[in-house]
């Protein structure tokens, strides 16, 4: 039953002292879906994502990733997920190739695989010439694309992206989404948090979190119908205002 679902959560909760960051959230993400995870700052989306990645232990509730329990089968879970955080996550003092080799290496790829992956990745990003350069010398947009490509280098079944396009110009953002679509076409499930409402439109389905709870979850089109809104921005504002 849960096999076709990439992520299943049931009443997943995280409390920090008296503060409830995520309050009994329940949702499913299908395999190969691009799932947008929206919410204002402090709404609990990063906490939820960190629990799913194994960076935080939930206070209560259940969750499975690719069919594996996040409490008991952490090793299995870790092998099947990729993660790209808000903070830029490559080593600036390593070259492009060294970064690729390192991350592929810690996921246990063989030397032969690493070689092939590196060539393929550099070709796809049109960075063959920059392979030997230090990452610190690359423009931000390139770094982010590289970062994403490295996050999926071990062919995970799910990749978690935590506000991956912060501070990038619209054109680079568009290119970044091309990479996401391409990965989704290969069957990779994309779980992405974002601030940008135009990006929300790119997702297959989105959930909107307010104060630790999921207030809405559907396709962008249906959400707009439901809230009688022109854009995702309106939907979001309606939900966010409702609380205050």
């Amino acid at each position: 039953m849960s096999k076709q679902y990439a992520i299943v959560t049931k009443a997943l909760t995280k409390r920090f002292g008296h503060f409830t960051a995520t309050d009994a959230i329940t949702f499913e993400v299908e395999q190969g879906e691009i799932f947008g995870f929206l919410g204002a700052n402090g709404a609990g989306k990063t906490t939820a994502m960190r629990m799913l990645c194994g960076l935080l232990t939930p206070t209560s509730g259940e969750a499975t990733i690719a069919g594996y329990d996040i409490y008991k089968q952490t090793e299995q879970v870790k092998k099947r997920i990729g993660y790209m955080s808000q903070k830029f996550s490559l080593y600036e003092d390593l070259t492009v190739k060294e970064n690729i080799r390192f991350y592929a290496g810690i996921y246990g790829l063989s030397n032969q695989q690493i070689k092939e992956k590196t060539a393929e990745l550099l070709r796809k990003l049109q960075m063959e010439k920059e392979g030997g350069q230090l990452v610190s010398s690359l423009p931000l947009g390139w770094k982010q694309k590289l970062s994403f490509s490295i996050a999926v280098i071990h062919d995970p079944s799910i990749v978690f992206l935590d506000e991956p396009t912060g501070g990038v110009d619209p054109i680079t953002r568009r290119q970044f989404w091309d990479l996401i679509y391409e990965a989704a076409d290969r069957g990779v499930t994309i779980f992405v948090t974002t601030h940008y409402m135009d990006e929300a439109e790119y997702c297959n389905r989105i959930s909107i979190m307010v104060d630790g709870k999921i207030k809405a979850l559907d396709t962008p089109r249906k959400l707009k119908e439901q809230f009688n809104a022109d854009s995702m921005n309106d939907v979001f504002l309606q939900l966010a205002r409702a609380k205050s």
Partner: protein
Amino acid sequence: MRQFLVFVRKEFYHIFRDKRTLLILFGMPVVLIVLFGFAITNEIHKAQIAVLDNARDAFSSRLVSRLTASGYFEVNRYLSSRAEVEPAFREGDIKLVVVIPEKFGHNFHHAKKAPLQLITDSSDPNTATTLTNYANAIVMQYQEEMGGKMELPLTIQTAVRMEYNPSLKGVFLFVPGVMTLILMLVSAMMTSITITREKELGTMEILLVSPLRPLLIIAGKVVPYIGLSFIISLLILAMGAGVFAMPVKGSLVLLLLECILFGLTALSLGILISTITNSQQTAMMISMMGLLLPTILLSGFVFPLESMPVALQVISNIFPAKWFIIILKSIMLKGGGLQQVWLPTLILSGMTLFFLALSIRNFKSRLS
């Protein structure tokens, strides 16, 4: 295992590409050894003295030449009256004035009593005490040779032998001290900085999400530093032996094993610091204030522990540096073996385990 090697290789890239790190790792030991070995020394060498010789006889001039012949003193000037003593000190060069009274030789031989006055610049009390001690010793020796054996019927003669460091070389204390300081610096400060750096950059999260076990991540980060601190220990020992003829009387193998042990103690402290803070700045401050300062001040490296207030002496026990210096001195200077240093070794091992256990506890509580 392969993942581990990949990780260690990445660590070496970090180390060798950062000029600042390299400078601390290899420049610092050399600078400190040279500084402590040559420049900062508490030995007296050619202290400038002034002589007010009121006697001007053969006996007095021989005394003065005995003082200068020792190498500890150099006569900067001769004064002609008592009034010149004060200005001589004021000028600052003169550390000691020897006042020889009139008829010095005559009194010595006939009255069997010849007072001699030593006036010191005690604005630096340590130097002043040392100078008078040296001068006294020379004068006493001179007196004995002049046949002026004290008229006391019974005398207690103390024969002093400076065991383990007969020439009283300060560097024999500084080499173990610098070694301790550097190992602390490299192992504790550098590891705490390198781990907090990953946290600051956000790469730590990526690593924690990856299949690498947290223990492997930490091990991968510290193993290069264990290797480096070992190499640095060898470097310091080689410099100590080559430049200052610092001996290693005990077993070299034991000495190196102890260095590794202390390296591990310092590493565990570094790891502990990195579990407390997320910022490199804070990690550096904690290492500096919490580790380096006590290592310098409270380990017996610069200031003798015996002369400290009891409270400080008690506190000094909790700093690993103190025990390591005891071990180093015992092995290097006294030729001590494991039966002499088992206690401090045990204490250091215990501390290491304690710090590691504490780090693991901190680490786990952070995750939940």
